[in-house]
């Protein structure tokens, strides 16, 4: 419950990002504000301040004001409100993590159930595809796909996804993790297929589709439900890694990974720009893992899943 509570809190404040940005901070977190200024302690200060020490090189954004009404966590190198971007970035990270986990679980469930139920050449073919995908270091595969697709987008027949679309990281992350979910589901399905109630259904003349839908899926569903929060956390971490490497969410859109990347160049002078999204990722991932563990205990306490996050 604690994990769920924290998660709900994070999701809620992220969903409220537009309200915070427009009504409280009065800022546009996607527009650069290089020459902008704000008031601190009644004094107007530039958001990006020219160094006046030594040789006078360098410009540093203002640090945290710890005042929710403006620049709570300070400004980034574009003069943007870091806290407002943090909330917007959470929307992207959570959206990508959730959507890719959903897509991954759906596709993996279909493929895992088909492979496990039909066996034979279909199982062999799907299993080899899983093996091939899983043989690549997962981040390397995701990075490779991102680099290729980021330059030209995805064009398959009438389907066109632009290079800057959030659907690209969703698709990429979902695709690379399909074997992670599908392989245990395949094994589970193979086990279920030998059970008496499935044999009875086959003997009674039920169609394969009906057996899969009415008999196998309901028994495999708890495993998928347990997988889901774990995959959200996994995928969110992957998204952050890709965005940190500039091959995930593309600016001016923000995700927690892109904000960390933005903060990398300010780590020495303004560490909060990178630390804040890092902390948010950690809290969210931990709460999702706790939620996943709770779901496992609730739905399938005897399940022997492949590792945990």
């Amino acid at each position: 419950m604690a994990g769920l509570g924290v998660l709900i809190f994070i999701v809620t404040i992220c969903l409220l990002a537009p309200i915070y940005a427009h009504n409280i901070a009065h800022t546009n977190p996607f527009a650069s504000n290089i020459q902008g200024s704000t008031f601190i302690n009644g004094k107007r200060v530039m958001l990006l301040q020219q160094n006046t020490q030594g040789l006078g090189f360098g410009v540093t954004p203002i640090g945290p004001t710890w005042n929710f009404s403006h620049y709570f966590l300070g400004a980034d190198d574009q003069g943007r409100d870091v806290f407002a971007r943090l909330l917007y970035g959470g929307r992207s990270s959570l959206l990508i993590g959730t959507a890719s986990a959903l897509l991954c679980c759906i596709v993996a469930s279909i493929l895992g159930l088909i492979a496990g139920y039909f066996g034979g050449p279909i199982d062999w073919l799907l299993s080899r595809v899983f093996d091939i995908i899983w043989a690549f270091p997962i981040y390397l595969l995701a990075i490779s796909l991102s680099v290729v697709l980021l330059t030209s987008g995805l064009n398959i027949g009438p389907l066109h996804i632009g290079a800057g679309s959030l659907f690209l990281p969703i698709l990429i992350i979902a695709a690379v993790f399909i074997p992670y979910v599908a392989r245990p589901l395949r094994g589970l399905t193979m086990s279920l297929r030998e059970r008496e109630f499935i044999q009875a259904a086959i003997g009674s003349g039920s169609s394969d589709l009906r057996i899969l839908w009415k008999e196998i899926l309901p028994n495999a569903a708890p495993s998928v439900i347990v997988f889901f929060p774990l995959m959200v956390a996994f995928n969110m971490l992957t998204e952050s890694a890709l965005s940190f490497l500039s091959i995930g969410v593309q600016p001016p859109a923000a995700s927690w990974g892109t904000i960390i990347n933005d903060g990398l160049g300010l780590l020495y002078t303004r560490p909060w720009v990178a630390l804040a999204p890092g902390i948010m990722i950690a809290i969210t991932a931990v709460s999702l893992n706790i939620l996943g563990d709770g779901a496992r205990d609730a739905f399938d306490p005897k399940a022997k899943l492949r590792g945990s996050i």
Partner: protein
Amino acid sequence: MKKFRLMRIVGAFAATLLVGSSAVTSSVPASADSSSFTYQPSHAGGTLKLLASTAGGTLDPQVNYTLQYWQLFQASYDGLLSFHKVSGQSSFDVVPDLATALPIVSNGGKTYTFTLRKGIKFSNGAPVTVNDVKASLERLFKVSNPNAGSWYAGIVGATACLATPATCTLSGVVVDPSTNKVVINLTTPDAEFADQLATPFGSVLPATAPSKDSGTTPIPGTGAYYFKSYNPNTKLVMLRNPNFKVWSAAAQPQGYPDEIDQVFSNTPESEVTMVENNQANFVFDPLPSDRLSQLSSKYANQLHVNTLTAIWYMPMNVNIAPFNNKLAREAVNYAIDKNAAVKIFGGSKLASPVCTILPPGFPGHVDSCPFQTPAGSTYSGPDLAKAKALVKQSGTSGAAVAIVATNDTVNAAVAQYAASVLNQIGYKATVKLLSANIQFNYIQNTKNKVQISLTQWYQDYPQASDFLKILLSCSQFHPGSDNSINISGFCNKSIDAEMATASTDMISNPTAGNALWSKIDQAIQGGNAVWAPLFTPKQIDFVSSGTGNYQFSKEFYMYVDQLWVK
């Protein structure tokens, strides 16, 4: 590549290259040698450790076009001519290197006669001969030197070499082994030819050097150092050339370190820390912006700041929407706040706004800022209202625009700022960040349909043609090629004709020539708004406290071989 393209060509030499004269000319004072570096043997020895985040590409001196390696090539290779190895403005002067003297120029400026020095050996022990000189000039075409089609296209026979590089034979290069004479015939007089020969592209290599890009395999040279090993993933090692003896300190002085290493795969942040801690001597990469304040306060005596003739700019593709519309290009020029870009770069002490293609202080530059309200000679700031009106007038409002930039901190930040501005004036702008290893070639290739990008140009030599002709003439636009340095794809035949006239004028009347280059600058930028010029940067070098004898060349920037580590 990290767009530190260096080119420099000799202004003083050009001014003395009078058509029809047959006199030996020199751009170097008679006391050149006495003004060269004085070698101090007590500081010789040790290992110099340079840091770079990535390798600089091929080690072939006739192919590589990066400052990162030109800094090393100048100590490893020699041509018939070289740039004067001194600090200050004189470092742009051309001096004889493997040639005994500056060339005798005859035949109305079309024939250059050199005499090759005797007794010089390559690092592998083989003697340098006139046949090596001829083979090296022909090799420029065989390895598809980036400037073979521009700088060296005027050599008699070059046309055929450009058409069929593999069988290149330059009939215009005549050598005589018995007298060690090398005669180079040009189709037309070229005021910049001596400078072009003095760059690393003009290096004399063994005739046995491969007829293709040597990649990671070092080619023997004649300089004070040779390349011992090169692994682009780890490091590059240079050692003293055992066959090197100083023949001209002005052209190739003795170096100090026994070994020069360039280590790759560090981040700029860690590089700075290593230099701070004396674990390395020099950071090649641009210093991280968040360290500038600290460095300028704490390590002021280890920072060296030098004015550059360079430009950061945003070329707009004049052949595809929305920037095939002149009003849209003007709108971008009105909208971008150059002072904001300067601020991102590190502040007004490290960069200055620029409105023209030719940077301030450059031959042919005239102060002019046409795209501001009111237009004036100095930059006064953006005019967003005017920009929005122009976008609306152009009918391009709402167009999707992708800005392609490199993914390092400063470039990414400038690109993000520009995208924000484009969004404000009515476009749907995004930023596409690519690795510096591929971005520069990517934005040149028309197949990638790049609308607007962020890039830089660093002069090779102080001639207006190095910017205007190299970057904006029809001959430099090659659709479908990764080597199409005219990134905007701008091609105007009448302006090209004016460029040809200006080049000719530079030989007989540099004042008139520079005036014409200025007019061309106005016609291209003021009349067509092909680029959005941003600012001219300064070079900041950070060396460790244990490193001495910092010397800066206008051509090669810091002389790595002159640094003391003892």
